[in-house]
């Protein structure tokens, strides 16, 4: 391969990432200048900055193709994932402003931005070393964020658990990378991909499995899902939301790209493997969610199950599969964040995250009640919301690829899922509570978060076309 000379347009092609880095530094700087009582406004600074980055990403025609001698690859799908991360980041930053137990300070928002930067780099990395650095940047920032409420033992415990699991899976993955390097004598995806075809089958598959451990940790798929419920429960709720959407989407960005460009030679193997993992992930996530009494644990198992649905799109191994998976992740980002935004409000008020604590919520604030209901209905796949269209597209892609059994398992899982989502809705709307007459005021940032997510949930359902079209065209370059 050799190194090509530095080309200044390379910098332009990673402009969103550079802007994220600049924003993180600005936020840390502003933190020093702000008096303690006004530090909450850092959330606004972060969100506003991210909106600017989002607009740049969407509106400025940035150069496409490989950059930095093939270390990163800017293509349509990478663009889609950048938008997912930025959208998630904006919503989480706003949501964090209303989470009372959290210390509002610069390092918190700074870490959030570094983690976002890592995710963005994960989506464009096409080189094993680059990928590893990006994943570690994401991961290490996230370990700290999970344990950010040092005073609360649950948060500290969650941080440690997340770190141990993360370090372990990352080590296994790195060992897998070293095998890949040994096969190919290089770390570029194209180089490794062409070498894998000549490697003896069990060795190649073993390397693939080790790499999959690292990716599976990020997306929380079975059997790398054990950390999710405890970490989701202990982490500050906005960070739970951030992990459940951002980290998961980043994991899928890496996984989908690796399947197509790192392991194309093993397609026969990984399709079978992903079908099996997807079935188990959906079923296990949904079944365990049924018994949960804590809303964050319920959403943790639900998000494991949701990862299973997205994996269907990966297993379909087609343009429709990738496009549907990406579309589903967009929808999933807004609906899951909406659910957590309501959880933040309720736990501020009652100090508890038990589902029982949601009794009478609809009577106290019909805005929160309807928001949570719409979010859960969308997660459950009820029309006309985005989650329904997303699931439909995913199942359609599976049938197109002839994965009928997987579709049937998926359909059964939708039913199980709806059972526990409806149970929460029932508590919110039907159960009475003693405080139901006290009105519940929703602070402005959360109102924006819920307003944006609600609009998105409905629009992605009834007017899915422009977004799906965009994702479809973005994925065209891969096939």
């Amino acid at each position, binding site marked *: 391969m050799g190194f090509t000379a530095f080309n200044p347009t390379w910098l332009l092609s990673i402009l969103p990432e550079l802007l994220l880095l600049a924003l993180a530094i600005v936020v840390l700087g502003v933190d020093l200048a702000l008096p303690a009582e006004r530090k909450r406004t850092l959330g606004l600074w972060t969100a506003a900055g991210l909106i600017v980055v989002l607009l740049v990403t969407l509106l400025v025609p940035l150069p496409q193709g490989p950059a930095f001698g093939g270390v990163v690859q800017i293509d349509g799908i990478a663009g889609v994932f950048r938008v997912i991360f930025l959208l998630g980041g904006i919503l989480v930053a706003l949501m964090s402003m209303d989470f009372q137990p959290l210390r509002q300070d610069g390092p918190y928002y700074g870490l959030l931005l570094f983690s976002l930067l890592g995710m963005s780099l994960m989506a464009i990395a096409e080189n094993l070393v680059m990928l590893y650095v990006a994943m570690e940047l994401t991961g290490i920032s996230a370990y700290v964020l999970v344990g950010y409420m040092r005073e609360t033992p649950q948060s500290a415990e969650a941080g440690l658990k997340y770190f141990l699991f993360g370090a372990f899976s990352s080590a296994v993955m790195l060992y897998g990378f070293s095998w890949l390097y040994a096969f190919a004598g290089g770390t570029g995806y194209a180089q490794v991909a062409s070498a894998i075809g000549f490697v003896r089958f069990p060795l190649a598959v073993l390397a693939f499995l080790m790499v999959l451990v690292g990716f599976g940790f990020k997306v929380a798929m079975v059997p790398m899902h054990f950390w999710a419920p405890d970490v989701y429960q202990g982490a500050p709720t906005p960070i739970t939301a951030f992990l459940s959407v951002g980290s998961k989407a980043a994991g899928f960005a890496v996984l989908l790209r690796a399947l197509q460009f790192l392991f194309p030679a093993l397609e026969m193997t990984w399709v079978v493997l992903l079908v099996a993992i997807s079935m188990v992930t959906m079923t296990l996530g949904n079944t365990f969610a049924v018994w949960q009494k804590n809303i964050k644990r319920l959403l943790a198992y639900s998000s494991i199950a949701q990862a299973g649905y997205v994996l269907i799109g990966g297993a379909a191994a087609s343009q429709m599969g990738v496009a549907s998976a990406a579309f589903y992740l967009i929808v999933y980002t807004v609906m899951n964040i909406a659910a957590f935004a309501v959880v933040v409000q309720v736990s501020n008020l009652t100090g508890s995250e038990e589902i029982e604590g949601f009794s009478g919520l609809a009577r106290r604030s019909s805005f929160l009640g309807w928001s949570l209901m719409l979010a859960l209905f969308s997660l459950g796949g009820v029309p006309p919301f985005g989650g329904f269209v997303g699931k439909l597209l995913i199942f359609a892609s599976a049938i197109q690829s002839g994965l009928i059994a997987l*579709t049937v398992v998926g359909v059964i899982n939708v039913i199980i899922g709806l059972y526990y989502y409806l149970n929460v809705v029932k508590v919110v709307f039907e159960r009475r509570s003693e405080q139901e007459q006290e009105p519940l005021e929703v602070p402005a940032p959360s109102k924006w978060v819920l307003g944006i997510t609600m609009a998105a949930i409905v629009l992605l359902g009834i007017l899915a076309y422009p977004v799906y079209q965009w994702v479809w065209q973005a994925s065209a370059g891969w096939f």
Partner: protein
Amino acid sequence: MNFPFLSVIIFAPVIAAVLILLLPKDRQTEPKVLAAAGAFISLFMAVWVFLAYDRALGGYQFVEQVPWLPVIGSSYYVGVNGMGVMLVLLNALLLFCAVLISWHIEERPREFFALLLLMGVGVFGAFTLLDLLLLVLFYELVLFPIYLLIVNWGWKPLREYGAMKLTLYLLLGSLVAVVGILAIYFTSGLRTFDMVALGGVKFSPEFQRTWFLPIFVGFGVLASLWPFYSWSPDGYAAAPTAVSMLHAGVLKNVGAFTAFRVAVLLLPEGAKFWMPYIVFLMVMNVVYATFIALVHTDFKYIIGFASVAHLGVVLMGFAAMNELGWSGAVTMMFAHGIIAAMSFAIVGMVYDRTHIREIKELGGIIRRLAPAALGFAIAGFASMGMPGFLAFVAEVQVFLGLWKAASLAPWYPAIAIISVLGIIGTAAYMLRAFQYVFMGELKPQFADIPPVGPLDKVAIALMSLPLIAGGIYPLLVLPVIQSGVQSVLAVLGGA
């Protein structure tokens, strides 16, 4: 025809529902007025469509088409043939009556009426859409308002169980059908969900035989096809009156009509292969439900099982696979819809005033609620197939259709005979219920229950009208229905 009649019918209730939700929290009257207005606009337009539908021309009319997901070939494509015209009219009528019947709701009226309207919207969509994907979307759209309506406003002892059972049953059925629909979509090779275009595709007989069953039975769950009916009596017993009315009156028809449109019309070879066997399940609908209704003593359960039996007749009409049977099935959907809604409305009126549903504990109610008794008598007579009511016209067609279907399977005439016997059972349980509830001595504790209100009277009158008018002069409705059936048969090439 440029004015978007069908879109106005479908979306007027949506707009009303959104306006209702935007009202301040404590309003009591405004939500009801808005709901009535929204439902009335739909009803007015539905009557207009009924009158303006060109019977001689036939086929799909009032067609509108706008792209929705062009990448996968889905568009917002609505249109009605003669069958759809009747069902849209039925839904509009019952939605309006359900709003009137619910006027006394004081518990969170805003949410109640908004959800009720959204339920109606889903039904309108399911009757009019010619795009399979959006058809499914609207079909399932009705499930979530129903769940919330039952769980929040339903009958306390049963509502959580009834609501969950109903929702999961129906969802499972529809998702099984969706898998079949996706199979049709990919096998056709047309990359379109356009039902009219897909109707022109000749699928291989093996494909049709494989996929007919999941699609027909999947949608058939909503039509309470035996043995997948058990959500229905429990759900209805748990549901508030207006929901029972709409669910029994139109939602089951959505199930039957969608099963017919998708499974029978797109996979006719599969239908010819399976119908002679599925027809036994439909007979079980009639026989089994009739027997249960004969011994049940809960007023609402009796009506619930009656509706299960009637749906058996509807489905049998479709199973006859000929013009008479299909025309009878559509007439029966219309008639049964009104009968079921009216019966549930009257059960609700009696229960709201006495808080008793056990028929043996009621008695002499006619002295206090004469209009309700009259309404129940009309519904009851219609239900037992008395000549002079629309259901008679329907049943005669269905049974003649079955008789003539002997070429399909030799046992069809026998099935017709068994079902006619079922009607005698209907007469027995309807009369029994009427006798226990309305006749006899007025019990002292019912001496001062409030009389039937003016809005309830209007609703009873509105629902009786088509039942009697259509029964006395069937040509009022039959030409429309038959033009629909004939245009469908023409596409199938005289199946």
